[in-house]
């Protein structure tokens, strides 16, 4: 029966750099294609409210009359459904995951 089977792995990793990073000081490498923060090119938006109606978590609030596009960042689950249904393709998910927030206010564009 083998005893202390892990010795090789432990010895090898003693001389390697740690795989973890000191996160807040060293930002995470953005993975291309990751579903992160929702961004809107507001100049191209026609305020059709399709994204508002389809959002599974009701994170979006689009005002057709006053031409306002609002998002509740804490409700958004970055599923990408709005990006799919947008007729003008002016919504996109960036790989970046955004900064922590302390308020529950909606962001207005």
């Amino acid at each position, binding site marked *: *029966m*083998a*005893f*202390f*089977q*892990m010795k*090789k*792995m*432990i010895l090898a*990793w003693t001389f390697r750099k740690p*795989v973890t990073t000191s996160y807040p000081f060293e930002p995470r490498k953005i*993975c*291309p*294609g*990751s*579903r992160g923060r929702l961004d809107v090119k507001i100049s191209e938006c026609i305020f059709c409210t399709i994204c508002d109606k*389809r959002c*599974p978590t009701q994170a979006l609030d689009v005002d057709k009359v006053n031409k306002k596009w609002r998002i509740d960042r804490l409700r958004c*689950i*970055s*599923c*990408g*459904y709005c990006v*799919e249904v947008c007729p003008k393709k002016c919504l996109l*998910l960036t790989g970046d995951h955004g900064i922590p927030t302390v308020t529950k206010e909606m962001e207005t564009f």
Partner: protein
Amino acid sequence: MGQRTIIPFGPQHPVLPEPIHIDLVVEDEKVIEAVPSIGFIHRGLERLVEKKDFVEFVYVAERICGICSFIHGQTYCQGIEEIMKLEIPSRAKYLRTIWGELSRIHSHLLWLGLMADAFGFESLFMHSWRVREQVLDLIEATTGGRVIFGSCKVGGARRDITPEQMTWLLKQLEVVEKEMHLIVDVFMNDSSVKHRLCGVGVISKADAISLGAVGPTLRASGVADDMRLLKYAAFGELDFEPISRTEGDSYGRCAVRCAELFQSVDLIRQAAAKIPAGEIAVKVTGTPSGEFFSRVEQPRGEVVYYIKGNGTKNLTRFRARTPTFANVPPLVKMLGGCELADVPVLVLTIDPCISCTER
């Protein structure tokens, strides 16, 4: 005869970060009886299904579990597609197979880490999770999410894997496979690990069948039963043989999961070689009317979805029977007569996911 004492295990317990409560009736150091109780995090999914659109509900289904999220979404989509008689493109079936197997690898590596943690082997735990992190990177690059894949939809897949990504994925998998060999070697051959696992919590073949065990718990007791044999997604076109062991103890269950890691890598390779070009989704028109039982193999075992629609956009009935729920009776059987110190290891050998169980 010693005095009987009842020791509560959970819902908050350092070995298992999920809320299951077990009353352990202990005599000296031996557990005589275990009485489980669940229901701490019931989320009322059956009611929610009546409010959500059937297309949107896939997001909720994916969030039933954080580890086998993709397979929950897949099971739901397969059920709806079956009710609506939708034939999804072949490429989408292969994509689902690849992501399903990636999720199996990451789930088993997570379990191996937790298991090492339960028997007090901290460095093995860290190394298992280090390798799992590489698998999560593969998942993030191909689907966009690390834990919630969000790439399955009714009618096919939401994303495609480009040929360049596929080549990169296979190359990375080779690296992961090498690392997994090192870790599995420790689990299978190290004397201290074997000392904690061999002969602990034996479930005989007859018991496993009569108590309704599923997944690796069942396969470790000598029953080669796997839902992938139903040939859903692309499994009909891949070479697949379920892995089973005859020991029926904790070591057997660990060995089944270790072997399944390499089987999943092999299945991904086969799928990548055979994946056809073409569309990844079909347009969904109409609403589901009818009912269906959808059965899919998750990393933890067989999951059963009952879906019923009445022709409106909201479903009328939805129920999920998750593998952990089916594995609770075998767990109770295992706990009866074991040593108190073995309880954490035994609870973990069924790979419990309590959030799944209570939905």
